[in-house]
């Protein structure tokens, strides 16, 4: 069902966990649909210095969470805001069609965490 890259991110997820005293926290999804992602960010000099995720969800939800942490680490906040859910799926080499809208929320979780950071800093 999933390609090798998705399976690799699912079985060996990168950046799992939760940062202590994060600069930004983003949680998206809904337990009703079966997918909830929480992203914590450490931000230094307008860049994502560190990022961790925790996800309740299926294989695609966990793989996209892992993938997005690799994609945005080191990016400026503006650059990270440009990454879309679609690009995360593409970076994984594609997802099964039925997973594209329900389990592919990882970029949104990052955006939510950045917005949280900006709000706390009074930048929004």
């Amino acid at each position, binding site marked *: 069902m999933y390609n090798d890259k998705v399976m690799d991110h699912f079985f060996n997820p990168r950046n799992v966990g939760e940062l202590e005293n994060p600069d930004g926290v983003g949680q998206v999804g809904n*337990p009703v649909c079966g997918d*909830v992602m929480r992203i914590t960010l450490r931000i230094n000099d307008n860049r994502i210095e560190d990022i961790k995720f*925790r996800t309740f969800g*299926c*294989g695609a939800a966990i793989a996209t969470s892992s993938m997005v942490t690799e994609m945005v680490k080191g990016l400026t906040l503006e650059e990270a805001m440009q990454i879309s859910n679609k690009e995360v799926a593409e970076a994984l080499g594609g997802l099964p069609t039925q997973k594209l809208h*329900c389990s592919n929320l990882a970029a949104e979780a990052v955006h939510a965490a950045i917005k949280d950071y900006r709000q706390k800093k009074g930048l929004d």
Partner: protein
Amino acid sequence: MSSQPNAQKLVYLDHSATTPVRPEVLAAMLPYFAGKFGNPSSVHAWGDEARKAIDDGREKVSSLIGASPDEVIFTSGGTEADNLAIRGVAHARKAYGNHLITSQIEHHAVLHTFEALQKEGFRVTFVPCDKHGLIDPDDIRRAITKDTILISIMHGQNEVGTIEPIGEIGEIARSHGVLFHSDAVQSAGKVPISVGDLNVDLLTLSSHKIYGPKGVGGLFVRKGLRLAPQATGGAHENRLRAGTENVPGIVGFGEACRLAKAELPEESKRLIELRDKLIAGFLREIPDVDLNGHPILRLPHNVNISVKYLEGEAMLLNLDRMGVAASSGSACTSGSLEPSHVLLAMGLSHETAHGSLRFSLGSSNTAEDIDYVLEILPPIVKKLRSMSAFGPGSSF
């Protein structure tokens, strides 16, 4: 297997999805593909040979359920049998009333057929179940009106394994002059079935759940009961199911029923022991696990648990990598956005339903298989919970 690099052994625990064809069944079928290829309707030796084969199959299938051979109609499987029973009664008896009764926890083959009949103008009552998936016969009694023409309630629930009080519901149906259908796809061959004791007028069977081939099933139709056929064509199967019979399939189905009947008392006892060992092991080894389905009125081969804070597919992928095949009622595995309608009808929250796992046992399973699953699932749960956005401290 390349997709299961870490598997120390292969353990198939998805027998409610399908079973392998038994060697004896395959051997019985093989002559009917090429050598004995005749059409049972033909008036010559080739036809006679095929006719005898399906007569023999009919005898064996009817014997499994205590029916007479002329009360069994062969179909392409359980889904077609459900459709023929439900639409067949609704269409044949609509002059007598337009009300139908079923439950909220039926298989989609039944549920979606009733929904289609609603669009045709029939009124359908979907009775609920309790937290164990058990249907209350009194709910059926209360739902019956003077317009009710059919009740359909499954015998063994396919997801959670609860065995419904079919005999009692059948009595209620009969005393009100309402026809009664039951889908026995998951229970036939697993628990003793007698159409007399169950008070059913129609009963659905499937071959591939009991070590027979796919593509063949059967419908018990009580003698004298008239149904509206759902396909037009020749006079096959007592004019109820047009189309040349699936001779090798019927031969295999018959042999599978014969073997299931002969082995049922011992095999069901053996499966119940394995089932209870697996249930007890899960509840002992994994924190925050619930058993789904009835603790006692339960199919011998069904185990269904909810693992809190986790989603089913993620567990299935990990189990598969370790060589274990199971299934889940999560949305991701049902191909829709909603988790299992059965678990929701039982009152489970969406998130608990997403975390359900079904292990369905069969003839190949041993006590060592159960030990292996009990060894590998707890660390999988631990690993996935360490990644989950939820946990005992953080409520949904």
